[in-house]
């Protein structure tokens, strides 16, 4: 056998045409460079946001791999078909009468040549692609990849090596096909079908089928073997499949070349081996999880996106009594598209408190399009969703008006008002009302995880969703695969310090007024006008014309704050324009400019302290211990916030006198047990989020240099790109990474 292998090696080596053929594989490098060049040209002509929607070029090998495969397959096929073509097969069989030996002795030599040449070629193809893309390669895309992936990225060396290996495999497939077909033109046709026609045909199939069938195409196996995308197969299965293809092709060749009497045995052996090498890894890699026990069906909400699936899950009202009374929660699912191997489930934790994650997920479904290539995206209507129906909705969406107590007596009076408002809502179901804290929400999420059959969950926690996310991190740290805080509430941070971004926004507002004639305060010092107005209003509230209410300085700040931090689209900044007009009118003695837009959103002439938010806030420990703490906080805030002092006290003041105890006060994160987190935030909510993720070692934060809140849900491309990259590959952006707001 060794002699025959050596002899076949001499055959291979002694044909100059084989060398020319290998040299011809350089065409694959040219294909990679050419396609990378076209990508680069297209990329350069796009806006930054459009660039992020580009499909990634990956390791760049895929663009030319069909060319490489064809060359290698021809090399393999010619090793046997040229013998049939010239008649040399008779000389060969006279020298080596054991026919399967003759065929299989060609394998080692071809394999060695193809392994070496394949690696050289794959790395050359990669290098060519990356060289042509240049700096553009580092661009992070919405699908979580970079435009080009360098060897320094995990999975890329493996995918390039696997691409080279697959070329060796294709060489042997070519040999097997050649032996089975016995003619060079015939083998070329069969190989062209396998390598070019079939994958092209599969790409025209409708979506789930395209991904499923595409996963089995040879050209998509290297990425799957490296676990770097390419399809739905786990690495071991993809590797097994590649080997099985080789075994199948060589079996076909061996059966055909064997004397008639031996064919059945060859066929049986080959088929058994092929089935084993493909099935064993597939079975071993099959998910061991029990799978979801939720029964998904159509959603009831009429405004939800069509692909949303819903299920309900029963959880105890009081997690301390799991056997006690239960309630049903609605879980919403945007299923994975099946384009790629599914990684798991991303759970989107909604903000509020009181918002429905199902409605939010549906409204921002488009933002999750890329993520759904790899994940099921799940959210739910948390127990504290205001329209859940257990507690009267109308009661929850309103509440008492809050003032800044100037004395213990006023503080106590505020407590009585708050308590009365709370009790009105609580009466419908006191037990439920007392268990609306974020830790209970976190335990509900854990129940969903168990029902989904997931080992671990990945999260995007938006706004107040940060608080249940923190509770989940504390209660179930081992179940957290990845956590994104998007403008998340930070219960650890000093609340006044947390409003510093509002002051920065106010400064931008004032600067805008100085610069833009559209500002009603243009030509005046907007900051000075505002500060004088609120000081005056605190002494003598400014009446709202035609209403029986008057706005204190505190009321004005609370009404103005949302407009300060969200000016609306540049360059008109409609909400700043509106705010400036309201200030100018209030300065003239009429606060109705504020009341107009407060009424639009709050359906009340003044901003009320919504019971529906307080019922969770207060249980999460947002309130003050006592009057003294309130006083100290207030003074600290006044020192820190020249224009908007007091707004940080709003939610805590709503908890004064609350009838239910704080059951989920802030407590430290089990930092050592958690994976690195990612924080994203805008000008106004970045600081708190960044402070939050700093508490988990190895974490990173990305600032979006613009206004906004809930950036991922809003579909801010740069944020989506970094978040998807983290959720898919657990890779975090470099420190200091920032997203520039799209110029519009």
């Amino acid at each position, binding site marked *: 056998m060794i*002699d025959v292998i*050596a002899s076949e090696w001499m055959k291979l080596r*002694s*044909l100059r045409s084989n060398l020319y053929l290998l040299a011809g594989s350089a065409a694959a490098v040219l294909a990679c460079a050419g396609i990378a060049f076209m990508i680069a040209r297209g990329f350069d002509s796009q806006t930054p946001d459009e660039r992020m929607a580009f499909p990634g070029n990956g390791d760049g090998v895929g663009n030319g791999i069909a060319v490489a495969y064809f060359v290698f397959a021809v090399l393999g096929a010619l090793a046997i078909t040229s013998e049939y073509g*010239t008649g040399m*097969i008779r*000389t060969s069989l*006279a*020298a080596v*009468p054991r026919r399967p030996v003759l065929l299989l002795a060609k394998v080692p030599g071809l394999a060695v040549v193809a392994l070496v040449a394949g690696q050289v070629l794959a790395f050359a193809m990669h290098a060519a692609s990356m060289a042509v893309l240049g700096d553009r390669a580092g661009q992070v895309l919405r699908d979580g990849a970079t435009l080009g992936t360098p060897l320094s990225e995990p999975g890329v060396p493996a995918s390039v090596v696997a691409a080279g290996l697959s070329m060796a495999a294709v060489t042997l497939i070519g040999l097997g096909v050649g032996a089975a077909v016995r003619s060079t033109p015939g083998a070329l046709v069969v190989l062209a079908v396998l390598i070019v026609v079939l994958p092209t045909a599969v790409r025209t199939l409708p979506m789930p089928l395209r991904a499923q069938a595409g996963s089995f195409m040879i050209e998509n196996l290297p990425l799957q073997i490296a676990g770097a995308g390419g399809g739905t197969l786990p690495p071991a299965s993809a590797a097994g499949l590649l080997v099985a293809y080789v075994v199948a092709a060589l079996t076909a060749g061996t059966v055909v070349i064997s004397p008639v009497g031996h064919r059945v045995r060859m066929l049986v052996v080959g088929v058994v081996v092929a089935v084993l090498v493909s099935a064993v890894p597939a079975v071993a890699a099959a998910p061991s999880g029990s799978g979801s026990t939720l029964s998904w069906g159509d959603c009831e909400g009429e405004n939800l996106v069509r692909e949303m699936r819903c299920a309900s899950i029963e959880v105890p009202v009081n997690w301390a009594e799991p056997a006690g009374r239960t309630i049903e929660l609605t879980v919403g699912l945007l299923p994975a598209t099946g384009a790629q191997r599914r990684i798991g489930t991303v759970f989107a934790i909604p903000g509020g408190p009181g918002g429905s994650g199902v409605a939010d997920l549906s409204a921002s479904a488009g933002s999750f399009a890329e993520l759904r290539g790899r994940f099921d995206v799940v959210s739910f209507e948390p127990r504290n969703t205001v329209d859940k129906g257990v507690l009267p909705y109308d009661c929850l969406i309103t509440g008492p008006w809050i003032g800044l107590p100037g004395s213990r007596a006023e503080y106590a009076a505020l407590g009585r008002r708050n308590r009365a408002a709370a009790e009105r809502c609580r009466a419908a179901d006191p037990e439920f009302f007392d268990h609306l804290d974020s830790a209970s929400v976190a335990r509900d999420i854990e129940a969903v995880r168990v029902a989904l059959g997931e080992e671990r969950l990945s999260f995007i926690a938006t706004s107040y969703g940060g608080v249940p996310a923190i509770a989940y991190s504390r209660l179930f740290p081992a179940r957290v695969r990845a956590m994104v805080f998007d403008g998340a509430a930070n219960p650890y941070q000093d609340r006044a310090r947390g409003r510093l971004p509002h002051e920065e926004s106010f400064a931008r507002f004032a600067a805008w007024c100085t610069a833009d004639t559209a500002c009603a305060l243009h030509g005046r010092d907007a900051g000075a006008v505002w500060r004088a107005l609120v000081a005056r209003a605190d002494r003598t509230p400014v009446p709202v014309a035609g209403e029986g209410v008057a706005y204190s300085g505190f009321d004005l700040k609370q009404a103005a704050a949302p407009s300060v931090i969200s000016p609306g689209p540049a360059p008109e900044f409609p909400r700043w324009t509106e705010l400036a007009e309201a200030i100018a009118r209030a300065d003239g003695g009429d606060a109705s400019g504020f009341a107009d837009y407060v009424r639009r959103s709050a359906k009340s002439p003044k901003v009320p302290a919504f019971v529906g938010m307080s019922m969770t806030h207060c249980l999460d420990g947002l309130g003050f211990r006592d009057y003294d703490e309130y006083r100290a906080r207030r003074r600290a805030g006044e020192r820190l916030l020249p224009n908007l002092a007091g707004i940080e006290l709003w939610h805590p003041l709503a908890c004064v006198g609350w009838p239910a105890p704080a059951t989920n006060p802030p407590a430290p994160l089990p930092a050592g047990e958690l994976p690195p987190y990612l924080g994203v935030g805008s000008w106004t909510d970045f600081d708190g989020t960044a402070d939050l993720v700093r508490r988990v070692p190895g974490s990173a934060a990305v600032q979006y240099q613009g206004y906004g809140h809930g950036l991922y849900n809003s579909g801010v491309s740069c944020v989506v790109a970094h978040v998807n990259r983290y959720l898919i590959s657990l890779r975090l952006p470099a420190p200091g990474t920032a997203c520039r707001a799209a110029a519009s």
Partner: protein
Amino acid sequence: MAGGLVRRQPDHVDSKGATVIEVRGLTIRYGGTLAVDDLTFTVKPGSVTGFLGPNGAGKSSTMRAVLGLETPDAGEALVNGRPYTDLRRPLRTMGALLDAAAVHGGRTARAHLGWLARSNGIGAGRVAQVLEQAGLAGVADRRIGGFSLGMKQRLGIAAALLGDPAVLMFDEPLNGLDPEGIRWLRGLLRSLADEGRTVLLSSHLMNEMALTADHVVVIGRGRLIADAAMHALAAHFRGDVLVRTPRPDQLAGVLRAHGAAVVREDDGGLSVRDLDAAEIGELALAAGIALAELSPRGASLEEAFLRLTGDSTEHRSGGR
């Protein structure tokens, strides 16, 4: 008539135990056509055996069967008592040239012989030897694609010699050889046989074989027609000489006295056997008898061959 020329051959190895090719009851069918029909013969060592038959008689099929390139429908072909395909390093037992064109034109002669040698564990030194022996040393590093048919034949013969085998088998080896090449090959075959090797070569030309082979196996339409020593075959089919003379009776007496068989023919001519024309002329001159005609008649070996196989080819043509 031909039946008398077929030997009975009970053993696959001759009495000295030397290597032989043995074909036993070999039957090969292509579709509905019988290419080889219950063919049995043995090739013995120490002589050159010609394998004769018209084109399409089944010679190549039989030789392919010997090499295991054909799977017989019945019977077997053995080398040294075993199927060729059972040989571990077959080139060391048997060298064969079936088709000089069965080479890849892209390789050099040296590379072609190189892989062949390596496949049977034959040293590289042997490659140079056979190249020299086949007169290809000067073109050893040229690509085979540029070789003439004669050079390819020499390369094929070199390949057959590579393993220094005791058994050699050549299919139409003289094709494409120039007269010098033919002389060289005849000498080579003779010396191989003289070394005690078993040599089988096929041809469709009897004349050619007459000068080369010691023994012939003649087949037609896949069947054995004759299996005999060349001299026996030649004697069997030798023709007569027609002599006309004004004194037939005297001449007949002289010729008979010298061992000839003489028959008086109806038109007065003499049919003389066992003496050739030259001898008859000498004897007539010595006896002072004038000759009016002296013509050797018919029955060259070629004609003998045609007569032997004519029946089978006619039959074949008729069968179509």
